[in-house]
Each structure stands twice: as C-alpha cells, then as structure tokens.
C-alpha cells in the first residue's frame, strides 16, 4: 500500500496517471512512450489500479450499507442499492476528487446549498472529461440532471 493512499484516493500518483490516460482513450504503447517505460509496466500498473479501485469501491459500498448490484472495474463505478432508503446508489471515482456516493433524488431542487451544487457540478465535469464524455450545456444544467446523463452513458442500467 502506498504511503499517501487513502480510502477516498486509493491510487499512487503513477497509477493515477496511467489509469487516467487509459480512460481518456490512449493506447498502452502510446502511454508507455509518453512515460518512457515499457508496455508491460503500463499493463501491470493498469491492472493493479483497477484491482485497487474495485476493492475500494466495494469497501465504500459496505461502509454505506449498500447491496452491490454491479461493479464496473474498468470505469471504476459501482451500482448498488440501499435497502433502508429504498434507493439505487452509485459509487464513483475521479482522480482529482476521489470517491463519491450518489443517491437517486426525486426532487433534487430541494437541495439549495450553492457550494454543494457547485462542487457537485465540478466533480461531474471532471468525471466526464476523464472518461471522454461530452455533454451539451453542461455548465447551465442542474447537477442532478447532469449526473443522470453522465451515469447513463457509463452504466447501461441507469436511464437518463
């Protein structure tokens, strides 16, 4: 385990860089050239990063009493269900902001905390950028709606 790794940010700097470049669509050989290393090292680091992220997502799900419905190791996303709240939940990872747990809201407009909504939008825009997703009018959209669109592109089970 790396010394700077935490539950919300489980990857080392090298793992973050490689995982992020792969998510952006770069090939293993391009990343190896970019980082002046071997393809084998890139592949090994990618696998280690995915394994670490999967373990962390499962731990976060367990800590939040979520039943795991589906885990997407490559996307670092977990789809779960909270039996007490009777709601679907999603656990996501972003290299710049770490782990977040999301719940479905019928009336997200009830949440009026401006800072919270701004941070949520920033997280989502980073998440989308990291995964090469483009959303029109993302800056003006309510974060809950934006999340819905982004998650529906990442998780087939989620409808926008």
């Amino acid at each position, binding site marked *: 385990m790396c010394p700077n790794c935490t539950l919300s940010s489980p990857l080392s700097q090298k793992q973050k860089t490689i995982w992020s470049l792969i998510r952006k669509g770069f090939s293993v050989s391009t990343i190896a050239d970019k980082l002046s290393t071997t393809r084998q090292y890139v592949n090994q680091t990618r696998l280690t990063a995915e394994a670490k992220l999967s373990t962390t997502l499962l731990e976060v799900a367990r800590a939040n009493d979520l039943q795991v419905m589906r885990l997407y190791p490559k996307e670092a996303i977990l789809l779960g269900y909270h039996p007490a*709240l009777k709601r679907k939940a999603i656990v996501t990872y972003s290299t710049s902001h770490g782990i977040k747990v999301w719940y479905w809201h*019928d009336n997200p407009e*009830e949440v009026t905390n401006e800072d919270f909504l701004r941070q949520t939008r920033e997280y989502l825009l980073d998440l989308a950028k990291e995964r090469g997703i483009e959303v029109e009018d993302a800056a003006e959209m309510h974060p809950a709606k*934006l*999340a819905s669109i982004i998650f529906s592109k990442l998780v087939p089970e989620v409808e926008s």
Partner: protein
Amino acid sequence: MNLLRYLENRIKGWLPKEPNVPSCQRTHNHKAPKIGIQIGIVTFIMGFVGGVLGAMGYSLGLFFGVGVYVWLIVIGIVIVAATILIRTKQKKEQQRS
C-alpha cells in the same frame, strides 16, 4: 403546459450523499404521516366540493337535463388525473428500485 408535460420536465437525478437532504430524510423517517396528511386533505376537499355541488345542484341544474352529464365529466376527469399521477408514481418507484 399540461400536467404530464410538467411532470416530465421536473428535474430528477443523482446527487452525492449529503447528511441533511430533505427528500432522503422524509423518505426514511416521515413517509407514513405524509401520506396520511395527503389522504386527509384530498378527502376533505372532495367532501367539501361534493357538499357544495349537492347543495347547489338544483340551482345549477345538475340533477336534470344536460346538467346530469356534468357529474360524468367531472368523475371522468378525476379518474384520468388519478391514473396519470399513479403511473408517474409507479415510474418513479421503478427508477428508485
């Protein structure tokens, strides 16, 4: 804007966990009292409207001629509105679970 369009355009979606989110708390803690209050209010309004229409039925011509059809039209509108609301609720429940 009709009711269906309004319901479709309402914002719904995902938000991160926040300890003081009202919709989460209400679902978790106060669901039963809220439904009870809603049923009470609807029953009171229906009783009041029924009483007024019953009392004024003769002067409004609701018990004879074309006026009799007003009852059928009102009942029809109520059934359609209730069906739309129930279906919307069911969709929301499906999305949630």
